[in-house]
């Protein structure tokens, strides 16, 4: 168990950021999803001990976040959402400095800073001052500083914000490599569902500071098996209203293209029968999978 929240509430004045949140995270790569103001960043900052719960208790690696924040931070790397750096420092000095702040000896910090910067793909740029870096480079340097002291848990808050597609893919590959090959647990907060789907096994969805759903991404997607894409020819209004009356959920993609979700008691034969009865041709019927976006949209709407 790396993180355990027991009925944690955090309030900013009258605004409830986390509302009686109880959750347990066992490790691996976990995606943190939720609309703006859902409490994702508050959740991360509580893990770091930067915020104190008004109610409940939070533990990281079995240690209380209020009483043992220094010990906890030794084992955590944090990549903040906003642009942050130390003015006037070169990339390599900045990363080494962050290592030294964690308590790494001077020589080892400098040596490891070079190694880490090479790992994140910053070779020549490491000697330039951070002010001259592009957004993508700044994201990478934030990741590098978080990895300096070899943390057991990496907290990433929107790590691909502002990156071009190539840089974003490189960053996602790095995150995937860190979690899968390097045995470092990650909690990745992002608005970009494909990023979470690409890098994480599990997902936590928050809304208004409350836990909406948590679980393995593949399992969550598999719970909605009977999803089809249907293309028809003809006036489909009666056909569609008949489907709706039988409990079929449907979403129109194009004029004659729909996605439908069938209830348990209805099979594809029934669809063909209804189409035949209404004089509609079915040109295409393909089983599709729920994407994480579908799951996310569904739970948020509920």
């Amino acid at each position, binding site marked *: 168990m790396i993180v355990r929240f027991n009925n944690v509430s955090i309030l900013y004045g009258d605004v409830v950021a986390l509302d009686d949140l109880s959750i347990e995270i066992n490790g691996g790569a976990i995606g943190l999803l939720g609309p703006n103001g859902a409490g994702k960043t508050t959740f991360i900052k509580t893990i770091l001990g930067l915020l104190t719960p008004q109610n409940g208790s939070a533990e990281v690696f079995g240690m209380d976040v209020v009483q043992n924040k220094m010990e906890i931070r030794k084992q955590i790397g944090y990549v903040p959402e906003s642009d942050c*750096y130390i003015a006037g420092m070169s990339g390599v000095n900045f990363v080494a400095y962050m290592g030294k702040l964690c308590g790494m000896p001077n020589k080892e910090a400098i040596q490891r800073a070079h190694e880490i910067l090479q790992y994140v793909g910053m070779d020549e740029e490491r000697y330039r001052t951070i002010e001259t870096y592009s957004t993508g480079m700044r994201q990478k340097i934030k990741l590098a500083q978080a990895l300096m002291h070899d943390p057991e848990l990496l907290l990433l808050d929107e790590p691909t914000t502002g990156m071009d597609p190539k840089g974003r893919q490189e960053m996602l590959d790095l995150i995937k490599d860190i979690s899968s090959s390097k045995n470092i647990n990650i909690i990745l907060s992002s608005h970009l569902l494909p990023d979470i789907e690409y890098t994480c096994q599990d997902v936590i969805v928050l809304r208004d500071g409350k836990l909406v759903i948590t679980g393995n991404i593949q399992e969550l997607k598999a719970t909605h098996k009977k999803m089809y894409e249907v293309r028809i020819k003809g006036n489909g209004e009666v056909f569609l209203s008949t489907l709706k009356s039988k409990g079929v959920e449907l979403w129109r993609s194009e004029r004659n293209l729909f996605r439908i979700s069938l209830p348990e008691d209805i099979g594809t034969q029934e669809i063909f029968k209804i189409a035949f009865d209404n004089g509609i041709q079915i040109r295409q019927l393909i089983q599709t999978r729920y994407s994480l976006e579908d799951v996310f949209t569904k739970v948020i709407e509920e």
Partner: protein
Amino acid sequence: MPIHDQSYRHWEGELKSHYLRWWVITYEGLKVILRRKLFIILILTPAIIQFFVFGGLIYGFNTFGAMANLNQMTPDFFFRFCFQQTFFILLICVFGGSGLIANDMKSNALQLYFSKPLTRSDYIIGKIAIIMIMLECITAVPCLLLFIEYAVLSQDLTFLRENYWLIGSIIAYSLVLNLPITFLTLALSSVTKNYRYSAIILVAIILGSAVVSGLLKVIFRSSWTNFVMYWYNIGIIGRGLFGMKDEFSEWQWSLVIMLVLSIICFWIMYRKIKGVEIVK
């Protein structure tokens, strides 16, 4: 298997104890400031030249014995050296200190600092030490060296025997000179993200206090209005510490004023420095 794996490698070293974590901030902060050549040439060098001038005076007095006004080496000599450094103290605070916290706030660095095993006290002590080390290097350190120079060049131990207490006075006065202005500089630096504003406000407070004092003196016709003046207070505390009890006998009041100012500044600093900025 490659000869040397350049991929990510786990680090198996041991983290150092937390005891001197603030020194990392101080050391790196000093490195960043002292990399600025103009700062060294225009501010630190002239401040140190003054030390050589006073050192030359002591040497001249001891070697030639002809400088009439230095016939008796008095505590006033060391006080004057320290007090004449106030101009450079202000310059160091303006050009070296005003950005110390403001720049961190501007670049959102506080959340990086406090995501590490670092307390707010570590951060504040580290920043205070950056300014204090620079200021002590132009006040206490050269003044003590001047004292040692005079003691070494003296023919006998009379000077040392009669004036050993000056060592304490020099150290205490350097703290009085440097600590309140350090707190003031960092407090102002912590209330804005723009170091220029904090520098301008610092100069306005230090120099403006003399103007306000002058105006109040015209209105109230009382010598108590002098206590509004920053350097006046610093000056009379110095005279008190160096045993020069002339017309400035109320140095304890000035000490209280500086103490209150320092406490207020520290309180502001402590409140403003946070790992999380909450926008309500």
